[in-house]
């Protein structure tokens, strides 16, 4: 085979791989939209679930998902950013315990979400904290799921701020904390925000840990932080299990809503990244 032909073959193989991944995704999207569009009515957003498909909606699930996202933002981002600041700015990298900590955080990012569900069931829902099968428990578990990702992306954002900037601040008689608070964090915020939002959008779609801790499959009332709850992915899972094709259509519609939420979050992340990108 000539060298040119080999080059063409390689390009062809790459295009085929691309086609497989995009084709699958496109086909999924098309079938979901075809099935789901009829179900996308205002009732989906206003009505609670019901045994009658024409009366059923996903209001409690959508609200709970929004609540969970907000709680995640409040819990995962401050803890994650604080950890990242410690690891980047204070921890001595030569010390073995700090290196162990780093290695563990990287490993935790790869742990399947359901493992966090088991942990949450034992420690948060039952066990020492014992707050029961409530929305807050779900949010705490999802916080654990996203925390490693938030820490890793925040660390990268902090590391991207050039050393010359913090040296300049210190040389002016600023304390370490002033340099972190006034220079490093403001410069790192676009990166931190992007990473955190992407992590959050992943968590919003998580189903397994919520099922494990016993998110209810039928919730006919608006959720509260300390009350029983369902979530959009759980609701989708519930509907998809039902044999009635009308519920299948509702599930498809709910998938579109979930997709819209996730894609909006990702769009915000991309916007922040482009808008505040710093060229040093």
């Amino acid at each position: 085979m000539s060298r040119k032909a080999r080059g063409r073959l390689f390009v062809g193989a790459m295009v085929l791989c691309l086609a497989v991944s995009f084709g699958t995704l496109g086909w999924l999207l098309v079938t979901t939209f075809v099935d789901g569009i009829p179900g996308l009515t205002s009732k989906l957003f206003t009505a609670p679930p019901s045994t009658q498909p024409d009366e059923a909606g996903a209001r409690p699930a959508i609200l709970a998902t929004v609540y969970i996202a907000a709680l995640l933002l409040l819990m995962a981002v401050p803890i994650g950013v604080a950890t990242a600041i410690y690891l980047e700015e204070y921890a001595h990298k030569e010390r073995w315990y700090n290196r162990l900590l780093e290695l563990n955080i990287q490993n935790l990012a790869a742990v399947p979400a359901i493992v966090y569900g088991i942990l949450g069931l034992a420690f948060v829902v039952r066990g020492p904290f014992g707050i029961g099968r409530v929305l807050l428990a779900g949010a705490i578990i999802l916080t654990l799921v996203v925390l490693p990702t938030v820490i890793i992306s925040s660390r990268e954002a902090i590391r991207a701020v050039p050393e010359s900037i913090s040296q300049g601040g210190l040389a002016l008689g600023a304390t370490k904390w002033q340099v972190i608070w006034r220079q490093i964090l403001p410069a790192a915020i676009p990166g931190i925000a992007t990473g955190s939002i992407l992590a959050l959008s992943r968590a919003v779609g998580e189903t397994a840990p919520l099922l494990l801790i016993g998110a209810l499959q039928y919730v006919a009332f608006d959720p509260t932080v300390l009350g029983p709850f369902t979530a959009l992915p759980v609701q989708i899972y519930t509907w998809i299990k039902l044999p009635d094709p009308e519920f299948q259509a509702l599930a498809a519609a709910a998938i579109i809503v979930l997709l819209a939420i996730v894609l909006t979050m990702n769009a915000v992340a991309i916007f922040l990244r482009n808008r505040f990108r710093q060229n040093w």
Partner: protein
Amino acid sequence: MDQEQQPDTHARLAPGAPSIDSSRIAEVSLGTARADLERREQVFHVGDLSVAYGGKLALDGVSLDIYGNTVTAFIGPSGCGKSTFIRCFNRMNDLIVGAGVEGVVQYHGKDLYAKDVDPVEVRRRIGMVFQKPNPFPKSIYDNVAFGPRVLGQKKGLADVVESCLRRAALWDEVKDRLEDGALGLSGGQQQRLCIARALATSPDVLLMDEPASALDPIATAAIEDLMHDLKREYTIIVVTHNMQQAARVADMTAFFSVNIHEDGKGRHGILVEYDATTKIFTQPADKRTEDYVTGRFG
């Protein structure tokens, strides 16, 4: 070589002026220039200073005095420890993990490395300008106001900003766009902004670590002119790898060189010769200095 070696009218005659090594002056024809400098206030006294990074010696046994309202240049080949040395004056080496400083650095007679000395306070009094201009990604105004702000000053910032920008010879170029981002300035303007920013904490010493090495010749000339003006009010220490620059701006020059260890693996910097700039460039006492300034080495 054309040099500014005239006694500066602004020279402060310190009441407790350091003792003058008269034997040295007698043997040196240019001794008068040095004697005049030595009559100035002694701002820093460095005694047998050594710096090591992670146990590896970087600079060994340096002793010299820095005089007030004087430009002192540190020259020498790469790796001779001149940048390491300048960072001892504002304790920037403290920030490097594993850096160890031994010996004495006195600032107006006070040991800079004493236990009760706060490095943050040291850095306020001893300003620093870096090799690569490093303006903060903020407005021009906020860059200059940064120092006073971290020290808690809230009022009168506009006056501080204006006077510092004037002293850094940048005011006329930026007065109409103080709120613009500092990163939009040219390299030379950015470096003068960094000088203005360093002046805003009212230091009495300015450390400049190769301040013009990233700039074009015109911007370099502007920085050198500025150093001439600033030494009326400040004591300036400048690291440079450009010998002509040292000859143009400095009153005193210290030549550093590299000592290669006998095993051939390690190397560390040493101070070879420290004297009036004219003397270093015309009648160096040490062969190594002569080789370096005449371009035979380095």
